[in-house]
């Protein structure tokens, strides 16, 4: 550590070069850390919302096919099943076509038992169960449309040929998707005049280990009926949604990799330039007794510092930008990407590696070079 001063001195020797290198590493790692955060969205959503005891039952043919509400009565009787909540997708828009966000209708009776992790207060649940036109809205949607509690809003039907008028009785938070809106299915059904069919039935079982057993019991029970079902644990259900975007994820990862390659090339070039210019003085240091190892460590420490400075600058700014950024509806599930702490750490490791690897070749050759040769070229 006694060489710290020397390392710092070397860094400020060519300020312009150091700054340019740090900045180029910073912008590249900014984009790298943002890109590799994209595929983690899937895991975040899973980790945030998926519960180990919830099952989604839908028509085997796909979500566009509905299932009879009568299935609810049969599912309730299956052992280990505690709560059953049917759900239908409304798909309404607030004002404009571009105002889309997930809005669904659910049976109100057991909502609190099904989603205790949604951070809804007892009073708000009571209101939801009491008022037929009640709705509960996620924080992000509240913010996006400047809504407030107690407000009456109208959602324009797209899938259904009518509008619904709803009263906001509470906010959903906790582990609920932040852009959700739920209202009551009895209200939707009355307006639609198409009773008896739902898109999805949520089932909650007593213990996670009973999930596979209940899934099998549900699907076997409805096999060979007019609407065969396919049930999945909540994690698998959400995962299959995210799976559609795998091309997007692969792209983001591929681009992230290219960014790292690119910045490694640029950094290696700079390191080579700055070490080449110092060959003479390195030879002088060797000749007055500095061992090659020490010189190598000094050079690597310098490059490591440059890499880390760029890395910190890059991933911290990416973290802040992602936090403040909302891409809106068009980006689908990617409207809000947050950088998980693991990516911060990963980026810093990449930064350190870029610093070390970029300098290792020129630094080794400079440190090991024959002193006489090196001194002779000083001229």
């Amino acid at each position, binding site marked *: 550590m006694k060489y710290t001063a020397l390392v710092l001195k070397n860094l400020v020797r060519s300020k312009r070069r150091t700054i340019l290198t740090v900045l*180029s590493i910073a912008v*590249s790692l900014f984009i790298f850390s943002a890109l590799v955060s994209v595929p983690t969205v899937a895991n975040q959503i899973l980790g945030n919302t998926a519960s180990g005891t919830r099952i989604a039952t839908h028509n085997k043919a796909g979500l*566009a096919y509905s299932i009879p509400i009568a299935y609810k009565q049969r599912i309730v009787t299956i052992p280990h099943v505690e709560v059953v909540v049917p759900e239908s997708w409304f798909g309404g828009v607030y004002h404009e076509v571009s105002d889309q966000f997930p809005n669904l209708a659910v049976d109100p009776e057991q909502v609190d038992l099904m989603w205790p992790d949604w951070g809804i207060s007892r009073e708000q649940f009571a209101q939801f169960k009491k008022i037929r036109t009640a709705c509960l809205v996620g924080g992000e949607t509240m913010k996006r449309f400047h809504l407030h509690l107690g407000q009456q809003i109208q959602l*324009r039907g797209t*899938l259904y040929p009518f509008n619904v008028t709803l009263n906001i009785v509470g906010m959903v938070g906790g582990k609920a998707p932040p852009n959700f809106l739920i209202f009551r299915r009895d209200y939707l059904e009355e307006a639609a005049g198409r009773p008896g069919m739902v898109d999805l039935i949520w089932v909650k079982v007593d213990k996670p280990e009973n999930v596979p057993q209940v899934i099998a019991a549900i699907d076997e029970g409805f096999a060979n009926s007019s609407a065969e079902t396919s049930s999945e644990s909540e994690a698998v259900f959400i995962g299959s949604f995210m799976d559609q975007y*795998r091309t997007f994820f692969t792209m983001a990862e591929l681009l992230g990799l290219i960014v790292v390659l690119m*910045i490694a090339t640029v950094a290696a070039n700079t390191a080579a330039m700055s070490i080449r210019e110092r060959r003479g003085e390195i030879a002088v240091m060797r000749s007055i007794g500095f061992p090659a190892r020490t010189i190598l460590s000094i050079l690597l420490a310098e490059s490591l510092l440059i890499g880390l400075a760029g890395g910190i600058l890059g991933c911290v700014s990416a973290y802040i930008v992602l936090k403040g950024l909302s891409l809106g509806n068009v980006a*689908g599930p990617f409207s809000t990407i947050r950088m998980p702490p693991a990516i911060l750490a990963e980026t810093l490791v990449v930064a350190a590696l870029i610093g070390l690897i970029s300098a290792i070749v020129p630094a080794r050759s400079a440190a090991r070079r024959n002193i006489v040769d090196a001194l002779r070229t000083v001229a």
Partner: protein
Amino acid sequence: MAIPLKYNVRSLLVRRVSTAMTAGGIALVVAVFVIVMALVAGLNSAISDTGDPDNVIVLRKGATTETYSAIQLDQFDAMKFLPQIRREPDGEVDASPELPVQALMERVGGGRDNIVVRGVLPIALKVHPKVKIVEGRMFNPSVNEVIVGKGLVGHYANTALGSTLRFGRGNWKVVGIMTDQGGSFESEVWGDIHNVQDDAQRGAYYADVRLKLAPGADVDALIRRLADDPRINLQAETEADYYKDQAVIANQMRVLGIIVAVIMAVGAIFGAMNTMYAAVSARTTEIGTLRALGFAPLAVMASFLLESLVLAVTAGAIGIVLAMPIDGLSTTFGNFVTFSTMAFSFRVTFAIVIQALIFAAVMGVFGGWLPARQAMKMTIVDALRSV
């Protein structure tokens, strides 16, 4: 007088490793640009190129996509007799009622995706002239037969000609393979509209109707009539407008791609600046000599700028070559707008190649500008003295 280009090329070759590394950085940035733009071009052609200039799509009022639309049979019957719609020589009206439904299909290699199954009548092939059956034949409405878009073949199980495809509630025999000149119908399965209605247990209604405009007919008059006629009361727009709106996803990808490429370019420019500054300071004596020989300061600056430009454009060309294997690669993409998966191919178009070269040139100019200015501002005496 200008300094010969040969001087720059040779200078670049002298510091081979450094040149190669700088070029490598720029090449990778250009490769990223090309890959993203090829994705966008592929998506765009898969969505926006689907429409036909003479077609009008009719939806329920307020519906944003055909997925969220419903049209009653009497509404369809009322619109069939409008004079603006083209008629076949045998008197058949070029009006194609359609019912797209998302059905889960097995992906080759595991997993399931939502694929659009479009219920149509045989008239659909006349209303969508770009759709061609390239293998096999059209489906027979009386049995469960379907034709499959070429984009799905190979990506999804049992989509080959002659196989039995399972989706919805039934088994469907694949009797034909269709193409749509790259449009989104290539990612769909088409079957008889009544079979699809039955299978999805939808009532006897359609989702949307595609109308082919009669030659010389006024499209605005047709759209107004469809909206105002109390028996019809539907919203219509040209297919071109409709698919332009559906392409938001491609536009979004384009914006994201450009942001990524520009930020990477900034990183590469800093790298190029480092290299060019090093080049200028290593060649101080040479610059002094050039000036002493009578080359104007501006010629020196132009020369260094040119050197940076040559480096960047060469690197850009390398980047394009690096990204080229992605051209034609076909893959599937989840569309956030329609909640269904579509197949498309990456397309490296000529325009993308030109844009990529311009992009590289811009990086060269930005990276070379300041160092070249520094070279220009050196005084002869100082430069020569540094020997």
